[in-house]
C-alpha cells in the first residue's frame, strides 16, 4: 500500500523539474495539465518558484525596446471599447469560454449517462457500467479547447471542439499519454465541431488516469509517429 509520503516525494521532485524547465515537452504538458486540478501540486510548484526566484539578481535587467510595449497595448487595448477591464466583453472573456466549456462538459456527462446506459446484468445481478472517460483539453494559450468522451465498450472517442482550429495545411492530432510513456497517436481530430475517432484496439484499455493531448501537425498527421509540433492542449481522462 502506498502512503501519502510515497506519492508526495516524486511529485515534489517532478514539480522542481517542471519549475526548472528540464522536463521533456510531453511530460511538461502532462504536468501542466495536472496543475489545473491539483491544488497540492500547485503549492509545490509555488514552493520551488518562490525559492528559485531568489536567484533573480542573476538576471541583469535589460530594457526592452519601446515597440514591445506598443505591441502589447495594441493587442490588449485594440478595440477602444475594451479599454477597461480585461474581462469586459463576453467575446474576449476567458471566463465566458471557460464557462462554455464547463457547460459542454456537463452536457457531455449527461450524454454519457444516456449513452453508456446502465445495463442490467444477466440474472439481475446488478448494473454493469462500461467505463466512460471525459477529458477537457486546454492549453497555456487558451486558444484551443476540446472536450473528449471515450466509451471503452465501443472504442469510440467522441471529440467536441470548443475553440480553435488548425491553420490551412495543418492538422490537429490526438495523443494518449499513459504515465511516463511516450505519447501514442489516437488519430486526427475530426474536422468540424464534432466528430468521432475509432481508438486503435491496443489502446482501448489505456484511458484510466491517462492524459489526452493534441498537437499541431502537418496535414494528415505527424510523419514520424511522434508529436512534431507544439502541444496545444491537454487534459486528464476522468472516469465518470
Amino acid at each position, binding site marked *: 500500500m502506498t502512503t501519502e509520503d510515497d506519492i508526495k516525494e516524486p511529485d515534489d521532485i517532478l514539480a522542481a523539474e517542471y519549475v526548472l524547465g528540464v522536463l521533456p515537452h*510531453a511530460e511538461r504538458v502532462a504536468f501542466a495539465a495536472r496543475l489545473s486540478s491539483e491544488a497540492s501540486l500547485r503549492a509545490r510548484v509555488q514552493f520551488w*518558484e*518562490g525559492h528559485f526566484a531568489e536567484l533573480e539578481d542573476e538576471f541583469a535587467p*535589460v530594457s526592452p525596446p519601446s515597440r514591445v510595449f506598443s505591441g502589447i497595448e495594441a493587442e490588449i*487595448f485594440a478595440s477602444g471599447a475594451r479599454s477597461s*477591464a*480585461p*474581462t469586459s466583453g463576453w467575446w474576449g472573456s476567458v471566463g465566458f469560454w471557460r464557462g462554455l466549456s464547463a457547460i459542454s462538459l456537463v452536457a457531455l456527462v449527461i450524454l454519457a449517462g444516456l449513452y453508456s446506459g446502465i445495463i442490467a446484468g444477466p440474472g439481475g445481478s446488478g448494473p454493469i457500467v462500461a467505463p466512460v472517460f471525459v477529458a477537457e483539453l486546454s492549453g497555456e494559450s487558451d486558444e484551443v479547447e476540446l472536450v473528449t468522451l471515450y466509451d471503452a465498450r465501443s472504442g469510440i472517442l467522441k471529440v467536441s471542439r470548443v475553440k480553435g482550429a488548425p491553420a490551412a495545411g495543418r492538422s490537429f492530432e490526438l495523443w494518449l499519454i499513459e504515465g511516463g510513456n511516450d505519447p501514442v497517436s489516437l488519430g486526427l481530430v475530426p474536422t468540424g465541431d464534432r466528430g468521432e475517432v475509432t481508438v486503435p484496439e491496443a489502446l482501448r484499455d489505456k484511458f484510466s488516469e491517462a492524459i489526452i493531448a493534441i498537437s499541431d501537425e502537418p496535414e494528415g498527421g505527424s510523419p514520424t509517429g*511522434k508529436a512534431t509540433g507544439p502541444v496545444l492542449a491537454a487534459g486528464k481522462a476522468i472516469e465518470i
Partner: protein
Amino acid sequence: MTANDISLLISRVALGNREAFTDLYSATSSKLFAVCLRILNNRAEAEDALQEIYVKIWRDASKYAPSDFSPMSWLIAIARNHSIDKIRASKPAAVDIDEMTDLSDEAADPEKEAIASSDRRGIDRCLNELPDTRAAAIRGAYLEGYSYQELAEQQNIPLNTIRTWLRRGLLKLKECLER
C-alpha cells in the same frame, strides 16, 4: 519599488486598471526581458515572447494570490514558463531520458556542509551544500533554461542517467530548503 508595491500593482491590474499595468510594465519589464533573452538566446524571439508574456499577465492578473514569496517570483515564473514552452516545443527531445530510479542518498561532503551552515540564506546556502557540478547544473537549468540533453552534454554524463543524477540534487535541495 518594493515587493508590496508590485503586489498592489498586480491587484490593480486584475481590476483592469490600465495605468497600473503601464506602471507594472515600467517596473518589471527589464527584468522579465532579461529572463527571455537568457533562455531564448535570440533578441527577436525574446521581444515577441515579452509581448506575449505581458498580454498573459494582463489577462491572468486575477489569478495572482499574494504569498510569502516575492510577487516577482510570480512574474518571473510566467516569463520562464512561456520562454521554456517555446524552446521545448520547437526542439522536442530526440532521445528517451531515464525514468526515476533510486534516489538514495550519496555520501555527504562534511566540509561543504560546514561552510554552508554559516550565515548564507535560502537557495544560495542550499545550492552550496550540493556537489559543485550538480549545483551548477541546477543553476544552469534555472537561469539559462537548459534541457536534460544540454545538461548531459555539459556535465559529460550519459543521457540515460542525467535525470537520476539531477533529481538526487533536487531532493537534497528540497531537504535543505525545508530545514
